[in-house]
Structures are given as structure tokens and as C-alpha cells.
């Protein structure tokens, strides 16, 4: 799966990267990322996840082809 992060998350992860390990759900991915960078736990807990431009829930089943975007809380305006 490919991961793309935005805004503050770029201080914790590369803008885009791939994960070869098999992960079943968004909840698993979140845990994986926290293990990768434990200091991201607080910010990741406030993020939403999206696939194909739509938000997905924590129990969304990930497929190997998914491009997953991690969306921090909005701060436009």
C-alpha cells in the first residue's frame, strides 16, 4: 500500500512512502505507524484516513493496491 501524509504529519513521516507488510485495517495501519514513530501517537489519534478521495473508518479493510491518505484536522480559513 502507498501512504501519503499532509501538513503537520510531514514532521513525523515522509510525504509519500510504501508499506510492504500486510495490514488488515486502518486501525492496524495506525498502530503500525505509531510503532514506526511513537511520537506521532497524539497527532495520529486526531487524523482521518481516506482512500480514493473518500474518508474511511477504522475497520476499513485495506487492499494491497490502496493509496491511503492521512488527513490531519483541518485548519483552513
Amino acid at each position, binding site marked *: 500500500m502507498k501512504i501519503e501524509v499532509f501538513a503537520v504529519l510531514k514532521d513525523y513521516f515522509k510525504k509519500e512512502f510504501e508499506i510492504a507488510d500486510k495490514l488488515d485495517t486502518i486501525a492496524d495501519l495506525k498502530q503500525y505507524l505509531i510503532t514506526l514513530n511513537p511520537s506521532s501517537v497524539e497527532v495520529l489519534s486526531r487524523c482521518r484516513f481516506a482512500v480514493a*478521495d473518500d474518508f474511511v473508518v477504522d475497520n476499513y479493510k485495506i487492499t494491497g493496491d490502496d493509496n491511503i491518505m492521512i488527513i490531519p484536522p483541518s485548519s*483552513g480559513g
Partner: protein
Amino acid sequence: MKYITEEPIDLVGMLQEAHHPAAGAIVLFSGEVRDHNGGKSVAYLEYESQITMASKMIALILKEAKSRWNLTIATAQHRIGKVKVCESAVVVITASPHRTEAYASNRYIIDRIKHEVPIWKCEYFSDGTKEWGGNCNCQKETGDPNKHIYESADQ
């Protein structure tokens, strides 16, 4: 209509296009970069967006507001990239036969853009430090990243 732009927002041009024979009221909100925040001097802001999602979401918010308040016109544009003090970062224009609907819907639209649409600002301060903004902290209160608390009263 381009909802996300890297170019300076043309407030006058957008207002010009909002005139309509059925509209007795036009409200234009411009969210502008101020020179201070949290007691610190702000040099400029830098905005980033997930453009395809943001554009789709703004289009939906405008469509919903237009139908809910029976607006003549509802439009919005958000700038990304570097935005300097006194420049417009976001504009919302609503037009309707009477002012009540134009005001209420305009506030509703800007609230939803600020809280829900994937756009982010990074503040660059005059002392050389920077900080990613987080003006949507609603889930601390609601416990749900999709549930927001809006300034406008009638959500």
C-alpha cells in the same frame, strides 16, 4: 469555478460575478492573514490542501447551502501556498433575495470549510519559528473527528 487556487484571490472580480437581478443582498466574507497570533508576530502563512478532496467537499457544501437557504449564488475559493499579511486566504460569497439568508448561509459555509475541508495552514512567525495550525480541535469535545462545533448557531 476553481475552489482551490495558488493565485491571489480576485475579490473584486468574484464580487462582480455575484451580481444577480434576483439578489437584493450579497455577502462577501474574506478570511485574511493577520500579523499576530497567540501573542506572536506573524510573518506569513503557508496553506496546503488535498486538492481533489477539498474541491469536491467545497462544491458539496455550497450545493447544500444553496438549497437550504434558497440562495441565488453561493461560491467560495481558498488559496494555497504562501499568503502574506493583509492578503485574502479564503473568500465566501452568498447572494439571496434578502440579507438574512445571505448572512446565515455565508457563516455556515465558512464554518464548514474551516472545520471539515482538508486544507491546512502553517504559521511562520517573525522570530523564525513555525507552527502548523489546528483550528479544528472539536473532537476533544465531541470525541469524533467527524463531529464539529460551529460558531454559527443554527447548524
